[in-house]
Each structure stands twice: as C-alpha cells, then as structure tokens.
C-alpha cells in the first residue's frame, strides 16, 4: 500500500520540462570537455617502462663505479708511502697559500648586495606566479572599504585549487548535519557584512545558502542572482565562532575539502 501511494504521489508531481531546452542552450555555450588522445596514455606508459628498464640496467654499472678497488696485501706498504707523500705535498701547498698576501685586498670595495624586495604572501609557488592586480572580484564591505582580498569568480577560476597546500582539511559530506533557522540567519548576516549584499560591478544580488554544519563548520553556497536564476560563485566553510572563513571544494567521492592556511578573514 505504501508503495502504491508513494508512486501515485510522485506521478502527480509535474516536472519542469522547460529546463531541458535551457540545459541544451547552456551546454551549447560552454566548451565541451575533450579527452586527451590515447597516445598520451600509451606514451606515458612506454616512457615509464623505459625509465625503469634504464634504471635496472644502469644500477649495476653505477654500483661498480662506486666500489673501492681492493688492494692486494703486498701493495699496502707502497700505497701507504704514496699517501704520505700526497699528504706532505698538500700541507706544503696550503702553507704557501697562507703566506701569499692577496694584492687586491686593499682595493676591494665593499659592495652592499642589493636584495630585491619580495613580498612573500604565500608559499604556494602557483599563487606567487599569478598576477596580483585586478584579480577576480574586489570585495567591498557595506562601509565601502576594500577588504583587501579577492576571490576568483566561479568554480573555474578558483584561487583554491588544492595544489601544493600543506594544511588541507577533508571531511566526509555524509557527516553533514542540519542547522537551525537562527544559526542560518546569523551566518547569513555575517556573510553579508563580510562580502556585501551585491556585486559592485555587476550589481547582482548575492545569495548565501547555509547548507548545513560539518565538523563544527557552517557549509555555505555563495551564489549571485543573474536576471532570472541564481548562479554559483563558490562554496565556503565558516567556523562556529565566525573567526575562520575558507573557500572549499566538493570532491567527487563525497568529501568537502579546504585549506586551513587560507583563512580569508586574516588575508
């Protein structure tokens, strides 16, 4: 009976078939994913096999080079004399060097090395390589003061790409719990005060969806309203005490991941 009723209830639900055309329109605008030619896969495999084979072949040769020659017992005394002579020559040479007065010493000018001033903001080499100016959205608070950090727009240009980060936190999405309406409202107010209510350049209104709570962090989707639909900007995690704010990503195997060294509230 339950099955019959549940099926009947679902059959009554009208779906939004207009979305199908919209999906194809959107897909036409976006570039299609391309698969790398098979040759790359096979080429990589061949290269790997070659490297291993070369290493296996070269290893005995290299080992031979590193081996000390085994002197026969009868030559030990003669070898000792040769070594003693070499040592004496070495000492003599060093003595000569020490007595030589460098002529250029008084002519040497003290040159102060010019150390270029480097603003080290991050240990992430990929981030250092990127231009700093006018990157992404300039976030301005309600008071109009620039918050001093920028966020790349949309999932494709994320500052956080998971590469080279040493302090990654990964939490399983299935641990997500729901939050109360009061908590949602609190976090929403906090995010609006941090990022503002709309994009200054496009004037698109921001939407902050508090998805739930994960390991003590509020999980939030930051979207903006574009004409007649919302579009995702990025995903965020915020600590319960509102002192930490990170951009996060969802992995395909059901985890949420963020870099704990990139607290947006500290940058």
């Amino acid at each position, binding site marked *: 009976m339950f099955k019959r*009723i549940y099926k009947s209830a*679902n059959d009554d639900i009208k779906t939004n078939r207009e979305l199908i055309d919209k999906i194809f329109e959107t897909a036409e605008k976006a570039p299609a994913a391309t698969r790398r030619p098979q040759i790359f896969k096979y080429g990589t495999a061949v290269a790997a096999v070659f490297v291993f084979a070369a290493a296996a072949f070269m290893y005995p040769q290299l080992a031979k080079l590193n081996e000390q020659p085994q002197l026969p017992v009868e030559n030990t005394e003669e070898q000792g004399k040769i070594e003693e002579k070499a040592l004496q020559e070495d000492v003599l040479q060093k003595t000569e060097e020490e007595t030589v007065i460098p002529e250029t010493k008084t002519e040497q000018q003290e040159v102060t090395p010019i150390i270029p001033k480097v603003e080290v903001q991050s240990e992430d080499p990929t981030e250092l390589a990127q231009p700093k100016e006018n990157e992404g959205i300039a976030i301005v608070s309600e008071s109009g003061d620039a918050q001093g950090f920028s966020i790349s727009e949309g999932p494709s240009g994320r500052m956080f790409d998971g590469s080279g980060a040493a302090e990654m936190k990964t939490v399983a999405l299935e641990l997500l719990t729901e939050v109360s309406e009061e908590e949602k409202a609190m976090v929403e107010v906090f995010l609006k005060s941090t990022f503002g209510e709309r994009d200054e350049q496009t004037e698109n209104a921001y939407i902050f969806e508090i998805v739930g709570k994960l390991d003590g962090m509020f999980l939030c*989707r930051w979207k903006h309203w574009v004409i007649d639909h919302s579009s995702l900007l990025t995903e965020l995690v915020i600590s319960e005490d509102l002192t930490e704010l990170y951009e996060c990503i969802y992995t395909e195997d059901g985890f949420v991941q963020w870099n704990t060294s990139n607290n947006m509230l500290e940058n």
Partner: protein
Amino acid sequence: MSENTFERHDKREIVEKYFDMIYKLALSQTKNRDSADDAVQEVFLRFLKSDKKFESDEHIKAWLIRVAVNCCHNVFSNSWAQKTTPLTEDIIFDTEEKGDVYYAVLELPQKYRAVIHLFYYEDMSIEEIARALGQNASTVKSQLSRGRKMLRNMLEGGYGLV
C-alpha cells in the same frame, strides 16, 4: 556502442528519457523546487559535457542517479525566502494519504530518502541501488530497513510498510 554513439540527438533522447526520474529524485533530496532545478541542470550539463563511454542504458541511469545524489548533497533549503517556496506549499495532492506518505519520506534523513525513493518509486533492486549510489548492498539494505522503521513510526498504521 560505437565511438560516436552519443551524437546530439542521442543525448537529447537520453535527457528527455531520464529527465523526470532525475527531477523527482532531486526533488525528494532537496525538498525544494528551485534547488531541484539547479541540481537537475547540473546533472545533465555534466552528462552533456562528459565524453564518458557508457556500456548500456542501465549504466547511464546509474551514472545519472549517482551524479544527481552528489549534486543534491550540495543543496538544501536556502534561507532566501523571496526566491524559493517550501515544497509543502508547492505540491498539493488530491488525497490526504498521498500527502502524508510523500511528506513523511521528505522527513527522513537524506541518505535514507534516496534509497526509499529509488526502491519504492523507481522499482530498483537493492543491488541496482547499491551500484548506482556506489555503496555496498548491505549498507543499502540497512538504510532501507531504518528508513522503513522511521516511516512506520511517522505514519499511523504504517500504510502497509513491512
């Protein structure tokens, strides 16, 4: 299937064929029409952009379900009330029992909801559900059992739930 199996009209057919299934699954997961719209778009955009080789219709179905559940994990009811409508106001059923049963399922935790929906509405077997969701059959069985138990507690008389 040949290398160029999924020409545009083939993909259109597939989208049309599975659209309702994915939409209703997304609706049961997100409990919100706007969020379900977002999730469904995301699922099929990924499908259209993907150059994955599918072995059969069952493979496509399982893939779509898995992606839909993953997309829906990202979405819950949002607090921007101006642009969203809670599902309770949006769907009105012609009988009270339909409403009782449907909304009781929506009260379940998300992971149980997916299993209940796929089992009772899509008539999928436990093995098929396990394959689609990327879980063990025993996990699906236990989620189904717990989901049923919760529904029995919520629904007076249980509506014949075993």
